[in-house]
């Protein structure tokens, strides 16, 4: 452990240059485009890639904001964007459980888009429980292909609490589940789940800011089960990276969280 965060070469490089050449970041929770409740000055593909350059983010995996509302139109838009940045920008297919007919059609088109690495589920936004029947086609599809599934999770939610994620994670052990926001507000329950189930990972978006949480995750779950995300274009990656690199953890843990774990998961999906 470093004497202070500032004595870490990794932290010094981030502070001096805004990026770390030896630890380029892989962000597994990004979006794209404008969204209703927030002014976002930086949501075009060009602007987002400029942010990635500025912050030393090598790879992002996104779901389109539009796809969360209009699955068909939004998924098409998202893959068109990601296809412009091969090897740099991957996509999640957004599946809306309220419309399984069109959802199945979206899944059937999955293979046509090599930029896809998995599915994005947002039970809270779709107001549909993760354990509901409408999600079955998507989860069976993901299990058959051993995909990554990034699900929004939020503490005490009727739609995507850690307890609900636990049920589907047990039912589909072939899927690698990323617990988006680490079950914000029920961190203990989400950490217990990630500790118990090899196919559940803690994803840091928004959670990174909670003082002491990253340290607790590393201590009780292990750095190997934590992946980085910051909801780009919502949040400045430097804010999120700052929380990780100035946490009271080792440089090895910082590298695992910012890069290595996500690379390992992507390689598993992409071969």
């Amino acid at each position, binding site marked *: 452990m470093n004497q*202070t*965060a*500032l004595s870490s070469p990794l932290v010094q490089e*981030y*502070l001096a240059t*805004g990026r770390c050449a030896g630890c380029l970041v892989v962000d597994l929770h990004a979006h794209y485009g404008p969204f209703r*409740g*927030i*002014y*976002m*000055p*930086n949501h075009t593909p060009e*602007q987002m890639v400029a*942010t990635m350059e*500025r*912050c030393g983010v090598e790879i992002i995996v996104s779901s389109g904001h539009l796809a969360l509302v209009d699955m068909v139109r939004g998924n098409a838009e998202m893959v068109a964007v990601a296809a412009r940045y091969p090897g740099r920008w991957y996509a999640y297919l957004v599946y809306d459980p309220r419309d399984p007919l069109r959802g199945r059609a979206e899944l059937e088109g999955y293979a046509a888009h090599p930029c896809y690495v998995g599915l994005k589920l947002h039970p809270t936004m779709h107001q549909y429980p993760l354990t509901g029947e409408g999600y079955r086609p998507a989860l069976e599809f993901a299990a058959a292909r051993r995909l990554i599934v990034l699900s929004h999770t939020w503490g005490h939610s009727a739609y995507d609490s850690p307890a609900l994620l636990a049920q589907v994670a047990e039912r589909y052990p072939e899927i690698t589940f990323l617990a988006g926001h680490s079950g914000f507000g029920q*961190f203990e329950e989400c950490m217990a789940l990630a500790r118990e189930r090899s196919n559940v990972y803690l994803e840091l978006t*928004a959670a*990174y*800011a*909670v*003082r*002491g*949480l*990253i*340290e*607790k995750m590393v201590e009780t779950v292990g750095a190997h089960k934590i992946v980085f995300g910051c909801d*780009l*274009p*919502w*949040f*400045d*990656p*430097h*804010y*999120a*990276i*700052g*929380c*990780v*690199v*100035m*946490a*009271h953890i080792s440089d090895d843990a910082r590298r695992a969280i910012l890069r290595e774990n996500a690379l390992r998961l992507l390689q598993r999906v992409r071969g």
Partner: protein
Amino acid sequence: MDEPLSFFDCNVSFGPGASGVLRPCASVEELLAEMDWVGVEQALVHHTLMREHAPQVGNTILAESLAGQPRLVGTWAILPPQTGELPQGAAFFAAMAQANVRALWAFPEEHRYILDRATFGAFLDEVSARKIPLFLPREAGGPRPPDTWHLVYHLLAQYPQLTLVLAAHGPWGEDRYFRPLLERYPRFYLDISRYELDCGLRELVARYGAERLLYGSNFPYHSMGGPRLMVTRAEIDEAARRAIAGDNLRRLLQEVDLS
């Protein structure tokens, strides 16, 4: 070589019993250690007991705790003058000066009062005239952000010269709430501890200048490291960066008149 940035955190607290804190900061020593860990030179501090227990107790403990701590500057919580629980009039400001307290907090939700002219009358006129910064937490109007912003709009309409700092507003995008206030009230300030918006600082500085943005962390609720790296690497010029990192707050505190 340029002088290193000198960070002055406008929003930290310590003490027992803080609600919603995963890892509390119990003492001044622990606070200073974390400031050293991330490279923050100074902090404007309040004590958890000012908010969670009672201002008349917490204010005193804060002053005692900060005695002999040159890196830490104190704040006190206010209460309505009608109940007489805190020193009144000139005595209050004299006590602030004696305790090296240079700013105030209002916690109307926890302390159950209406933060407006009907309650605070001439007291906040004097706070305005003395240029004492008044900090408001995000939850000042309740858990819903619009309620707090309504409170701020109402308060500033009644006290347009008040130096008001909205602390730790939420990360989910509140520009549409606060930009009208930046345009209308020259002494309205933002603690940027939770202003995570990608390229937000760059856009805000380009449109409104850097003068009313204050580096903060909302520690120990939130990490000091996030805003520390964000401000250090924001796409703004060096003068703006230094202003946000600490010079704006130093200027504000120098303007305070407690004579």
